[in-house]
């Protein structure tokens, strides 16, 4: 894995899909480590599901710590797209049960990319647009 050294110079990137099952059994620490190691390898990560809110905050904190320690790493762009919460009571119950069984919000998608590659993630409730750096 390329860490730090080549991050500032974009020679290409790949998009990596990570099923939730890959992180389901990891603790928060290792989940974030895994996600950041993928992003530091110049990959845009598409994660099935979403992190817990406290994990999202921790991901931001750990990203900041890495900016200080890894040369040319400037941070991440992050976006989560999920249901709009208008499912109704039955829909919410079904979603809640499904989430409890799977361990995460399977209806959500999390996109995380290195800021050197992804300039901006434009978001509205129903779509995410990725604007890449030239």
């Amino acid at each position, binding site marked *: 894995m390329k860490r730090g050294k080549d991050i500032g110079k974009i020679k290409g990137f790949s998009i990596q899909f990570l099923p939730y099952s890959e992180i389901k059994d990891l603790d928060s620490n290792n989940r974030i480590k895994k996600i950041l190691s993928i992003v530091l390898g110049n990959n845009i990560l598409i994660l099935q599901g979403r992190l817990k809110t406290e994990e999202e905050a921790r991901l*931001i904190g750990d990203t*900041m710590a890495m*900016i200080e320690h890894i040369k040319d790493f400037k*941070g991440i*762009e992050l976006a989560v797209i999920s249901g709009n919460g208008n499912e109704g009571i039955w829909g919410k119950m079904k979603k809640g049960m499904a989430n409890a069984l799977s361990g995460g919000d399977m209806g959500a998608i999390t996109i995380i990319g290195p800021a050197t590659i992804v300039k901006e993630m434009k*978001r509205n409730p129903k779509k995410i647009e990725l604007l890449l750096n030239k």
Partner: protein
Amino acid sequence: MVIKIVTNFFSRIFSNMFKHKKDIKLGFYGPPNAGKTSLANRVCKDFTGEEIGSVSKIPHETRNIQFKEKVEIEYKGKKMIFKMIDTPGIATKIDYENFLKYKMNRKDAKKRAKEATQGVIESIKWLDDMDVVVIVLDATENPYNQVNITIIGNLVARKIPVLIVANKIDKGKADVKKIESAFPEYDVVGISAKYGKNLEEFYESVFKLSKKI
């Protein structure tokens, strides 16, 4: 031994009696350059005559947690005492080169970026210590930003009351309705911290939320 037990008993009773008298910790959170310090300054200046921190057009001007103790806010004859806590803007990326645009030299820009990353870490750590939080958003910007959602999600998980402030309503591009539709479950108050516009509604909402804790 008996004396110690009796002392502990009374200190517990007294601390519970005066628990509600403690100052309410009012945090200002949000992305960089949304106007957190401008709003905190406006409130502090109105009620103490002093400001809490400096403001700048350059992002990440606030890079340390800033406090103002014993700020007594008076609204419609009622008074509440707050400890104001102004936090550095939370971001997912910080590039020192962005500061160069503001005619800052490379060395200072790198220093500012380093301090800004530490500021974000501090802001996140402080989430646990707030009683009430005001999320300050720039009403001219897209509210569907993951940082906003993450901060609010973390406050909800900690059962901390949240008020959303849509700042910069003095600007033509400001869209308070967009913020309201992005966060329909929360009170949204449109204000201009710079010009002191609609602060009455802001104080009313802060008092309402503070009574919940």
